[in-house]
């Protein structure tokens, strides 16, 4: 422990020496500026398309206060001729809106319609009684499709309806006369609530309890989207400082390399784990502090926030730990860090946007943070589902880090794929080959999963037909690489030679991969839906056949490289073809 603290202190000293004198002033000034600006942006709210449309307005037209529209007031004839000359996109003529017949003008009219409709609602609300202004309320009921208890469930709909012929509220029939004195009905209260949301809707940081009730009341014109944009942005703000701090963390290792001080450090009586933990400690503490401060400022639940963001911080640092270790030049580091930050951010932020729409959004812990700020509850199972992979990746990254933290590896300048191959080789424990290979393909599952997710996103740029095809190909190739990479580096380094070894290891790798794959599927399904699929997943047919398929393709790849000297990429290609044929067979494309 004291060793770790020593390293941590050394790290802080290094950092402080970086920011002395003039440079400290510059940094402090810029930081202060960044805070002021973000505060101002925060205050102003999120309008993305500033000044996008030009709107001409007749003198009696409505006022427009939306930064998307630049307005000029002109009389009718000028307005219409400007519209024809394309000098303005739409012309608002009193209660009418004139547009041209081209895309830009129609989009502008669409945007204006959205805005003006909202203005109208505010006007109507102010001018009329609430029951006249909002005469339609829709009560939403959800009906489960439980087939087993059909006899009971069938009355659900009828039950919900029987109340309607009477008063919708639970008041006595005789109480209607006293209604003025009574509080408003359920639905009117819900309408008021929604009007309030509409009025505050334009501003960004609106953290409040959602209107919660067993029966959801909808007013069609006030219906707001379920997208938790504001909360997602807040969750994203938590991640931002962490990514900034990590720049120093990556630099720390590179510094040691450039000055060759790492040699000194390695010869000291310190374990690699102590070095890594020591170097990480100051930055992790800082990140944690920023989480605490942010939660206090925003008024969230401190304990919950810490529980949610600790795995996130560890996850981010585990990715950044890998960056300097495979680095060769400055430019590499920059680009790989950029890639890391993009992938991390999208992996965390993107699912959170779907919170409340799809349960798979729980993949990212930020969804939990969104739920927290929306006042929704979640259970331990949801917490484990979203955070366990993060802890896993952290453990894996720490382990790899300790294995490759040696001078020879760090100083070597080789192509990127060689660096990765070498890292895999160092990770494998030579005295426990079987276990290592099994665990390796098991642990690579989250990475495979992430790559496939990324491919899915990228493939959406292509037309649907190519996208599906491309996705299948990439998925198969990535899986084949993940299963065979460990064995391939062992073959390359001459650790194994015999065909029997290749086959046994291929089998173990297939087993490890299958376990991981099924585990992932099982966990997702158990959270996503209490489905009947879970037992089916583990029935013998669903286990044995894929196992054989995984084994065959992996063995093929390894034998081709190991025995027949075919270059690894081509071997992977051959294995992938076998794997793809199997997939197509399962999907029923090939009879």
């Amino acid at each position, binding site marked *: 422990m004291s060793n770790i603290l020593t390293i941590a202190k050394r790290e802080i000293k290094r950092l402080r020496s970086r920011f002395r004198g003039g440079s400290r002033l510059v940094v402090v000034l810029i930081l202060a500026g960044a805070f002021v600006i973000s505060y101002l942006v925060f205050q102003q709210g999120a309008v993305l398309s500033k000044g996008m449309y030009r709107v001409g307005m007749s003198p009696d037209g409505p006022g427009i206060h939306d930064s998307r529209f630049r307005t000029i007031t002109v009389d009718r004839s000028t307005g219409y001729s400007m519209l024809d000359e394309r000098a303005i996109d739409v012309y608002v003529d009193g209660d009418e809106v004139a547009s041209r017949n081209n895309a830009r003008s129609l989009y502008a009219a669409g945007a204006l319609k959205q805005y003006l409709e909202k203005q109208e609602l505010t006007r109507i609300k102010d001018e009329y009684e609430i029951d006249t202004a909002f005469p339609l309320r829709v009560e*939403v009921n959800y009906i489960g499709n439980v087939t087993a208890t059909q006899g009971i469930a069938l009355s659900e709909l009828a039950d919900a309806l029987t109340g309607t012929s009477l008063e919708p509220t639970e008041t006595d029939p005789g109480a209607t006369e006293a209604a003025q004195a009574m509080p408003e009905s359920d639905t009117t209260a819900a309408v008021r609530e929604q009007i309030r949301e509409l009025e505050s809707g334009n501003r960004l940081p609106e953290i409040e309890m959602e209107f919660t009730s067993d029966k959801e009341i*909808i007013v069609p014109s006030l219906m707001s989207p379920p997208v938790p944009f504001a909360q997602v942005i807040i969750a994203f703000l938590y991640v931002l400082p962490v990514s900034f701090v990590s720049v120093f963390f990556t630099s720390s290792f590179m510094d040691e390399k450039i000055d060759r001080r790492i040699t000194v450090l390695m010869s000291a009586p310190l374990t690699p784990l102590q070095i890594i933990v020591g170097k990480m400690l100051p930055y992790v503490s800082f990140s944690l502090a920023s989480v605490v401060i942010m939660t206090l400022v925003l008024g969230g639940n401190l304990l919950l926030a810490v529980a949610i963001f600790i795995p996130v911080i560890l996850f981010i640092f585990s990715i950044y730990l890998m960056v300097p270790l495979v680095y060769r030049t400055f430019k590499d580091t920059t680009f790989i860090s950029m890639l890391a930050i993009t992938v991390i951010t999208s992996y965390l932020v993107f699912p959170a946007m779907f919170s409340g729409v799809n349960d798979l959004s729980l993949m990212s812990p930020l969804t939990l943070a969104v739920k927290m700020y929306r006042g929704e509850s979640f259970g331990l199972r949801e917490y484990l589902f979203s955070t366990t992979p993060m802890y896993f990746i952290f453990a894996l990254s720490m382990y790899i880090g300790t294995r490759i933290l040696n001078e020879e590896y760090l100083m070597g300048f080789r192509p990127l794929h060689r660096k990765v191959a070498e890292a895999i080789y160092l990770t494998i424990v030579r005295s426990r080959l079987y276990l290592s290979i099994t665990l390796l393909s098991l642990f690579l599952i989250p990475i495979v999963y992430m790559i496939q997710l990324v491919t899915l996103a990228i493939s959406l740029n292509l037309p649907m037909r190519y996208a599906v095809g491309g996705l299948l190909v990439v998925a198969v190739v990535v899986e084949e690489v993940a299963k065979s990479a460990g064995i391939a580096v062992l073959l390359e380094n001459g650790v194994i030679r015999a065909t029997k070894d290749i086959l046994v290891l291929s089998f173990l790798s297939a087993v490890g991969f299958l376990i991981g794959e099924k585990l992932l599927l099982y966990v997702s399904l158990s959270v996503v839906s209490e489905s009947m699929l879970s037992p089916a997943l583990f029935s013998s047919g669903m286990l044995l056949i894929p196992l054989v398929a995984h084994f065959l393709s992996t063995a093929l790849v390894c034998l081709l490289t190991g025995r027949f000297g075919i270059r690894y990429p081509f071997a992977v290609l051959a294995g992938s073809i076998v794997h793809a044929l199997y997939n197509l067979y399962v999907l029923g494309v090939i009879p």
Partner: protein
Amino acid sequence: MSTFYVMVRKELRSVTKEKTIMIAIMIQLFIASFSSVILIGLMSFYDPDSIAWNANISIKVGVIGDADSPLVWFLRDRNVRVTPFPSPLDAESAFRAGMVDAVIFVPEDGRGVVDMKLFLPTSESRSTMILMVLKEPMKRYENYLREERGVHVRYSDIRGMPSTTYEFRYSVIIPILMFFPAFVAGSMVIDSISEELENRTLETLWSAPLSLNVIFGAKIAAGLVLAVGQCALWSMLLRFNRVPIRNLGLVLLFAAVIAAIIAVGSALIATYFKDRERSQFVYSLFILLSAGVSYLFDASPITLMIRLATGDYYTGIADIAVYGVLLLALLAAFLSVAKRLIAVPA
């Protein structure tokens, strides 16, 4: 001039040889893809019309109660298939048999508040989808009821197209794709300069018959070439995805000017701090700061880019020229102080 050209080529080779630039391109492709996923998946919630516009989702709705209500007509107008049911039980069994996706109870319009009831499946994603389709007809019905009660709603029948997609493409995706290469270029310039400074290779280069300005100029130019190349690539990809950029020449010119400003600025940062760690940190903070500032003001690079790309009538080369002047001033300042900055120890 030829030494300058040789230097630029050397810089470019160092990026292309190790294929690091591919990573940068991948990042941007990735960002663009994720943005479009967000666009399709999320913006449609804000603007359900665009979903009904883009995809012809057909849903089937069972109606109990007033089957002659105008709502039924509004639903049919939106391509919703409506089946009237005489009793709740009939409707429910049809719902369970999967013959209808949702059931609506429409009470007779009795001049008071109309309390409609909507029955949806529990599956969150399906019911969200159904609600999205039903929203527009329900809104029309609401307006009809308002008119019946003497409330006139203006602007409810403006002819226009849902603008969310358009706004998102031109105000998010295009600025990201046109400015991100500039950000990458700045990062590259910092790496390139601070690497020379930290490895003490700059002295060697400098003592060769190369002036400091040629060395730095070449590094900045290399970053610029890559940035413009990427922007051109993105504009092609966008066109391929049927997102045309108006004033393409001006858009690329403006992207180049911004990339040059950022590259010169980052060279200034790198020569001041002389190590990668601090330079990159200050640089990224600075970029964040500028993005924030440009967000606050009307005359900002982002707004100008949006206006150029959407073909705004009043926007043209004169607006770009302002940034051109800024660039020249910055470049002049950098070239005059670079030598002195280098001489100062870190």
